[in-house]
């Protein structure tokens, strides 16, 4: 049997992720000041605070429902384009889940794979456009190759791939969104959404590393 998280642990993981994203508020605002309107940190904080409130007060019987609920909350409370994209990450990601009781490396890969496809379609973006997809798609690709591994190992590799992808957004000019008008002046700055995406995966991995998993 591969290691996995049960629903309660997945919920705890997402509370853990949310609490850490909130601590990145100033960093994300600062990154967004260069490329956007400087409020990505505020928006993500608003969203993940709402996630914490919801998860701490509700029980979930199925993984799909837990992840979709997170997506709905992000959509509502982050607002704007980021709300739609991060809402889609969790909402559409949840549609990839097959086994609704435990999160193992296969389900993790299903989740990321569905999220990537939905975001590409919805945002009309591809790798290299300097968006959050530059962090998410490499993570999804590596997760798809590592479905035989334990969840902790798979998440660690995905988080590393997301970091590299996020770093890669520094060297490319923006093609879409408000940063588009900056063109080459956007070079040298990482995409704020890619930073957030990396942190989400990093803290998922951080939680799983410490959790007592079910074999």
């Amino acid at each position, binding site marked *: 049997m591969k290691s996995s998280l049960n629903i309660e642990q997945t919920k705890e993981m997402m509370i853990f992720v949310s609490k850490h994203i909130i601590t990145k508020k100033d960093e994300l605002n600062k990154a967004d000041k260069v490329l956007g309107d400087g409020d990505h940190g505020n928006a993500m904080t608003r969203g993940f605070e709402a996630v914490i409130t919801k998860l701490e007060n509700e029980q979930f019987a199925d993984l799909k429902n837990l992840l979709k609920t997170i997506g709905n909350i992000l*959509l*509502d409370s982050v607002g704007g384009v980021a709300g739609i994209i991060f809402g889609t990450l969790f909402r559409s990601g949840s549609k990839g889940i097959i086994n609704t009781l435990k999160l193992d490396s296969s389900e993790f890969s299903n989740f990321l794979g569905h999220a990537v496809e939905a975001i590409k379609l919805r945002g*009309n973006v591809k790798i290299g456009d300097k968006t959050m997809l530059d962090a998410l798609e490499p993570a999804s690709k590596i997760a798809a190759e590592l479905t035989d591994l334990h969840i902790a190992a798979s998440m660690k590799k995905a988080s590393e791939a997301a970091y590299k992808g996020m770093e890669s957004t520094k060297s490319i000019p923006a093609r879409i969104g408000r940063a588009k008008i900056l063109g080459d002046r956007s070079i040298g700055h990482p995409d704020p959404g890619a930073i957030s995406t990396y942190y989400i995966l990093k803290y998922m991995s951080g939680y799983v590393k410490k959790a007592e998993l079910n074999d």
Partner: protein
Amino acid sequence: MNKSKRFLNNPKNIKQEVTNGFVLANKNRLYKICDGNVLIANNLAKDKVGLLIGGGMGAEPHFMGYVGKNMADCTVVGNFYAAPSPNIILKATCAVDRKKGVLYLYNNYAGDNLSFDMAAELAEEEGIQTKTVRISDNIGSIPINRKSDRGGIAGGILIVKVAGGAANSVDNLDDLYRITKKANDNTRSLITAAKSGTYLDSGELMFDLSEDEIEIGIGFQGEPGLLRTKMMPVNEIVDYMLERILDDLPLVENDKVVLLLNDMGAITFIELLIINNRINQILTEKKIFIFDTLIGNYYSSQEMAGFSISLMKLDDELKKFYNFPASSFNFMKGNL
């Protein structure tokens, strides 16, 4: 010098004051929900397909001016140049759905596409079927082989008019989608500006244009167009614009068109009539029949000194729905 004087109160209250002002002028025609973010026509006809339009503020009287009987059923009002949020679009969708589905008709811009697509997904989860037509009449900067990337400007009003007529005649969403898509496919527009509008809140110019220059084909917020050139006699400008429009929308003798000649905010009726004079000369020469002419302020970019020319080619079906009696604040047709 760059900051324009505007008649405002606290800029934070603009949206509230604008939607209030509009509803008060339209008491017999529409009402608002969601704090004025959604305006809905009174007494929606039963058992009809819904027609929902919307987008960010900034191009008034587009879109709110086109809600009413046999026009759009509702509009969703975003903030300035920002798409409305999916949740508000969803609420509007639920409000106008009469179990026959809802057509989304809005300008083809990235932010709007994201929001309306997201709303469509949420609506589907509520059991409401939607379809989407993105207005893409602006041939300004994007060639026809990338038509799906073109944005929407004043020609959208003609499309809303046809769609409004059709929504009250057809009995299923697929038909409304087909007719509205055809209206969009048959419509072309171009803007020429002599001077930029300004952002209402900051007073800053949206784009720079020298005192003696004009730009033909510019986007409504100053997106680069076809040609930046020295000011010239308006007939020459009109000739250039019509040539591009007719390249893009091939018309043959005896074709029928609707002409919409629109003030982008700060040119005079006098100028529009001079422009209309030239357009008629050219189209008459080509034996193209102008079925209807609209001249006025239908779609603005604040106080941009500029105008747009839109042509919609009519076939019998589009003509029928264009001619349908309709009543909205900024577009009336026939007797209702």
